[in-house]
């Protein structure tokens, strides 16, 4: 029982990071019908920028809490500029090109960012400063620390904030309008370029938060960290129904839980026939099963008419 609870906690923490990153994929897809494969690298850049800022701030003797806030702000601003730049350079010129073209520039962008980061921050793993006390709390035998609690709550808060922006503000209405029909939105006076740019910036800011969370949780940052995380988050977005915000959150949490419970119990369930080496297989098996019965993902509905 303790183990079960611990696996649930592990899954929720991992899942909330997946969900935050998945939101970035799903927002862009919902509005442009484009898969922004460079999004995982934006997470990495966020982690690296916050690492650079934190190291400098702590070096100047700034108190940890303030340093964390400033570092996060710096990373978010940096990633927003980056997100804007990516869209402006790699996607906007190709907005009316065949769908394959921006997909290729997205992959190219991802490689460019990865290699730039390797040149700037080096090849080695960087230790991430520990700013939040990680004394373990024991809840019914399961262990959770402050960083993990902060990650979970922050992820929930950001998701709630995003839902508010999309469904309750003027900007959100413009975003939904562009997603519905670009030309009609333009005729109604919506500045499409502005809405798309803001979408990219919002997604990138969330990516920066996710980057900081991942690095703080594992205590490690690396120029390669965005790749696998991006892939998993993309999977989560598809699982939940890409293009659907609630789907991305649900998909992220589910993927986290499936991975952690899969790794934890697959060995016992199959009598040792399969072990934790089937962790990813298990996650993708669930993905395939969902897509067979619901081709547009768990909560996705509008994709068929979009494509």
């Amino acid at each position, binding site marked *: 029982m303790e*183990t079960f609870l611990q696996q649930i906690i592990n899954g929720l923490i991992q899942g909330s990071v997946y969900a935050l990153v998945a939101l970035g994929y799903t927002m862009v897809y919902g509005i442009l019908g484009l898969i922004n494969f460079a999004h995982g690298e934006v997470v990495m850049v966020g982690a690296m920028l916050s690492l650079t800022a934190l190291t400098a701030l702590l070096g100047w003797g700034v108190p940890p809490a303030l340093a964390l806030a400033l570092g996060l702000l710096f990373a978010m601003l940096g990633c927003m500029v980056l997100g804007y730049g990516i869209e402006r350079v790699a996607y906007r010129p190709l907005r009316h090109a065949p769908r394959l073209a921006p997909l290729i520039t997205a992959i190219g962008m991802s490689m460019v960012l990865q290699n730039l980061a390797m040149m700037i921050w080096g090849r080695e*793993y960087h*230790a991430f400063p520990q700013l939040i006390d990680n004394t373990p709390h024991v809840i019914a035998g399961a262990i959770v620390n402050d960083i993990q609690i902060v990650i979970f709550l922050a992820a929930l808060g950001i998701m709630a904030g995003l839902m508010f922006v999309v469904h309750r503000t003027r900007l959100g209405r413009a975003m939904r309008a562009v997603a519905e029909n670009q030309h009609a939105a333009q005729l109604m006076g919506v500045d499409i370029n502005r809405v798309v740019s803001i979408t990219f910036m919002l997604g990138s800011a969330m990516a920066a938060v996710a980057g900081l969370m991942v690095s703080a949780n*594992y205590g490690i940052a690396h120029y390669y960290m965005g790749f696998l995380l991006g892939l998993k988050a993309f999977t989560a977005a598809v699982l939940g129904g890409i293009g659907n915000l609630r789907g991305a959150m649900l998909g992220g949490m589910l993927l986290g839980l499936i991975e952690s419970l899969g790794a*934890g119990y697959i060995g016992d369930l199959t009598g040792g026939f399969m*072990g934790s*080496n089937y*962790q990813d297989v298990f996650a993708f098996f669930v993905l395939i099963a969902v897509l067979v019965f619901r081709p547009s993902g768990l909560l996705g509905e509008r994709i068929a008419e979009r494509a």
Partner: protein
Amino acid sequence: MPFRFARPLLPAILTLSLVACGNSSNEQAAMPAQTAASTPTESAMVLTVRIGASAPLTGPQAHIGKDNENGTRMAIEDANARGISIGGQKVHFELLSEDDQTDPKTATIVAQKLVDAKVNGVIGHLNSGTTIPASRIYHDNGIPQISPSATAVAYTAQGFNTAFRVMANDGQQGKVLGEFATKKLGAKKIAVIDDRTAYGQGLADEFVKSAKASGAQIVAHEYTTDKAVDFTAVLTLIKGKKPDLIFFGGMDPQGAPMLKQMKALGIPAKFVMGDGGYTPKLIENGGAAAEGAYASLPGVPLDMMPGGKDFAQRYEAQFKQPIQLYAPYCYDAVNVMIAAMQKADSAEPAKYLPLLGGISHDGVTAKIQFDEKGDLKGGAVTLYQVQQGKWQALETLGAAAQ
């Protein structure tokens, strides 16, 4: 509008890339000319000998791969500075370094590239998973290959006369680690995690064999990958089995966060790794959680070897960083290859390969002699522990330490 803006850039980029291509093809054109001209009849020319090197220069293990390249580069620069003559000609050694991305498929492409570039010998690859598939290509083309760090038993068991290594194999290392864990650390219940690479899996299997033979019980054998950073699920599972020791067959990018997560989950077990864990990065990134961790490294401690300390100092001065892991082994590998070339008085692979197996060389890591398979003779293994934020040598086990 944006599209029109992008267009004028295109010719500029094309021109740039053409210029770049032009440069490299000029260089390449010049080099064979030099080699061609350097036949014995025109002995005034310098003989260019190309040493191929391959390791991951991008990806999670890039820091270790770059360290390999640095070690190889140092040996080549030293050899050029010494002014070696082969067959009455002055030799200029040249390094051709390729990135195999830790990927077995890429490794074979890179190997073919090196073969096509007519390298005289290859130092590499870093990982067993890349070394083994690449070794077939070197063998088929008769190119001698010395791996500084591939430890999987299978590498030299293929019967290739071109395959050598200057490091103890997993059979030797896993055996020592298993005995150390059970006899010295007194572990009774052991959990094993491996990263499912040829190295991690091979070492873990040898460890399990040896630990079982010494009477320990393997309570769990779990898996991860060489790109993962989250091990909480696997560690939670292991925690339930209450092992008193966890062995991880893998490299430091996984080792450091694994140590942290063990601590976060409150697992009190001892932690043992193979040579993949013996790096400064494990301590730097593992922080306080790395304290007390064990790792092994084939050979004897560097500062106990003649020339070892000097090597470490020169390395740090040249590359502005401490040795990560295998740089000294790369340095030795190059020097063994050059020694064979000198003995054969030829840099032709077909001429010096038969002599490579019989070379005896006093390297910075060990006295290097090969057995009939191409494995390192002797194969001492030293065990280290993190004590007060530093790797401290505990003892040297295995074959006779020199």
